């Protein structure tokens, strides 16, 4: 069986799974799986760029996804009236000052000889800078957050069309990735994993706490969206007629239609990114990246600047994740920093990449859909399984209750098992790297 036939069968298989879900559960569920599957596929693509091309083990994907979500807020929400005047300038000023302090410390560190004087100066600069920063920052933040905290209490955004937020998410993620990569990419594999995990935790902690930026855990709701609102559709006469003609009631039809619009938009983005990734893979640049991955020492000996290349890939992969994050937040319609759970979701993406086929773009996309489907369907399937297992038991029996309740925890267990089984028996994944 040739590769393309086999791959088509895989994708057809996944499509079939989703369609079956539509029939057995509901079309809304199926479309929900499809949409999130599309987003996951993009994230898997981004991770695969880093792992498959460069062998970088990034466990901090969630941080970049969160940044994408933040970008959505910063780009598309209207600016909070009065917030900028109250504290905007001071906050920016404080941040610039903070950055300048760090830069000054770094300059001192690199340009002075190691000595007590250097240590004192750096320490002094940092301490003074810190207190000045706080002195400027805290009151400004307080003023901003005082403005109608129930509804806003933050700076707001630029009020631009929401579709611009998606590339903006990519850019924001790329910028942060560049900073992180500059510092962390020299580290060895395990250390890089822990460092990236830590940084994503910090990013999410910042988002949860800096209310002036994104309302923190108060969440930003009512994000503008590229698709019509269901309620509007439901009161649109023409729409109702079309829906009834097709055999759907207006409510269901409106939700389905909105989801389909998103699906269309997401697919376009996925296709664009996929094509770009494929072309990169087969380009001389892509071949060089993989040569570096396979033998770093030899590549360095040949004059390739390995760290710079790794940085490129790190930034690109993170940018892709940022775009996906922006898309995800748009789909949700709200920014909820509390729901970003770094390790869990990151882990899921990794399972996608590995099961699908690490080092292969198509494989990552396939993995994205398949694993996401599995993740959603484990719970209902597990429920059925448990009902079967506890069939013979009396109602109210503690084991029965316990088993039925614990279905919710089966998801992670199943995913872990899938990962281990694939790594052991089929480590190259479904669609292996060529």
């Amino acid at each position, binding site marked *: 069986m040739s590769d393309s036939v086999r791959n088509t069968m895989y994708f057809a298989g996944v499509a079939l799974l989703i369609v079956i879900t539509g029939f057995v559960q509901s079309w809304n569920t199926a479309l929900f799986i499809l949409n999130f599957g599309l987003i996951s596929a993009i994230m898997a693509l981004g991770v695969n760029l880093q792992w498959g091309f460069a062998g970088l083990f990034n466990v901090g994907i969630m941080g970049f996804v969160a940044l994408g979500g933040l970008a959505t807020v910063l780009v598309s929400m209207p600016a909070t009236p009065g917030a900028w005047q109250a504290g905007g300038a001071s906050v920016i000023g404080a941040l610039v000052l903070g950055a300048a302090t760090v830069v000054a410390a770094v300059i001192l560190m690199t340009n002075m000889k190691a000595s007590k004087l250097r240590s004192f100066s750096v320490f002094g600069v940092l301490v003074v800078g810190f207190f000045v920063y706080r002195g400027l920052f*805290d009151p400004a933040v307080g003023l901003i957050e005082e403005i109608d905290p129930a509804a806003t209490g933050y700076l707001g955004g630029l009020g631009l069309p929401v579709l611009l937020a998606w590339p903006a998410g990519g850019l924001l993620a790329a910028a942060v990735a560049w900073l992180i990569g500059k510092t962390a990419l020299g580290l060895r594999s395990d250390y890089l994993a822990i460092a990236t995990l830590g940084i994503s935790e*910090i990013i999410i902690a910042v988002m949860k706490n800096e209310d002036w930026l994104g309302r923190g855990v108060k969440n930003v709701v009512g994000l503008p969206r590229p698709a019509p609102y269901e309620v509007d559709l439901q009161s649109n006469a023409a729409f109702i007629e079309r829906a009834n003609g097709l055999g759907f009631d207006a409510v269901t039809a409106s939700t389905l239609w909105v989801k389909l619009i998103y699906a269309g938009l997401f697919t376009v983005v996925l296709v664009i990114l996929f094509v770009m990734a494929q072309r990169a893979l087969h380009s001389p640049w892509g071949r060089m990246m993989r040569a570096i991955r396979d033998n770093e020492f030899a590549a360095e000996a040949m004059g390739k600047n390995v760290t710079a290349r790794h940085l490129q890939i790190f930034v690109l992969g993170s940018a892709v994740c940022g775009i996906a994050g922006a898309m995800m937040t748009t789909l949700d319609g709200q920014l909820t920093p509390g729901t970003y759970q770094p390790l869990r979701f990151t882990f899921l993406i990794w399972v996608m990449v590995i099961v699908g086929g690490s080092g292969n773009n198509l494989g990552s996309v396939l993995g994205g859909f398949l694993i996401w489907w599995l993740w959603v369907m484990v719970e209902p399937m597990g429920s059925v399984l448990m009902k079967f297992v506890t069939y013979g038991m009396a109602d109210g029996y503690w084991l029965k209750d316990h088993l039925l309740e614990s279905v919710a925890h089966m998801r*992670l267990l199943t995913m872990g098992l899938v990962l281990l089984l694939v790594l052991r028996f089929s480590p190259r994944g479904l669609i292996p790297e060529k």
Partner: protein
Amino acid sequence: MIDFLNAFVALSNFVLIPAISYGAQLALGALGVTLIYGILRFSNFAHGDTMAFGAMCTILVTWLFQSWGISFGPLPTALLAMPFGILATMGLVLFTDRYVYKFYRDQKAKPVILVIVSLGVMFILNGLVRFIIGPNDQRFSDGERFIISVREFKALTGLKEGLAFKTTQGITIVTAVIVVIALFWFLNRTRTGKSMRAYSDNEDLALLSGINPERVVLVTWLIVAALATIAGTLYGLDKSFKPFIFLQLLLPVFAAAIVGGLGSPLGAIAGGFTIAFSEVMITYAWKKVATYVVPESWAPDTLVQLLSTDYKFAVSFVILIIVLLFRPTGLFAGKSV
């Protein structure tokens, strides 16, 4: 003078005692991580959930004992149950080693592969623990709550500030000290312990010297299981047991091990206390202590909190990153793979 005493008491109550206690828990966790790194040569992401598993087994046995009416007087019954928890955890880690890690070890797989595998094990364990005991908070401590409570202290000393020294904090410190002494005695004075250090130092030469690698691996896992169970149980007694917590604890534990120097047991302990003290001190509102110590006119109106408590975990990371950038082998010059 009284002011300084009050300041010191407040400091002890809110900073010193909690930090020492937390530091001991992190140190025990970091010891497990560092041993695995030094001897098995990979970062075991599943360690946090191994701690959860160990604590869970101890809790189940504790409940059993409590239902049988067995108790340990003023000390928590969990201490009696802990050996059983340790045994169960030993079984678990040996099982995962035999059926998961050994395959990759024999293949001489890259360390990063083992890390990914340990991620898988982590989630299976996480799911398993929640499956068995549920995701909620579990209470299992009993016995005397305080060695000395705030009220007793104030009555005793007549100071304005009170000091509370919980039993669990005391047990944590005592147990940690005992465990560390035992571990260091084992590593430095017994033949098996020395062979483990040799294996960690220079694998080829150790093999040449006739040291049996399978035995070293076995003993390592047994010790790690014990450390993880003890650390997890103590943390659960002192703060609370919630499966989710251990996922979060993984990160400071790793930070502690790396800061101290991966592969160095002494480093793990130093790292544990460094991280604990930093977390507590940087997020503590110093206003109270400052008010006692400085003259009235200088008394601060703000909380004098360097970073808000929400950033507690961020602190360990920032320290970790600073160490990784400037002294990647850690305080005690461990190894880097």
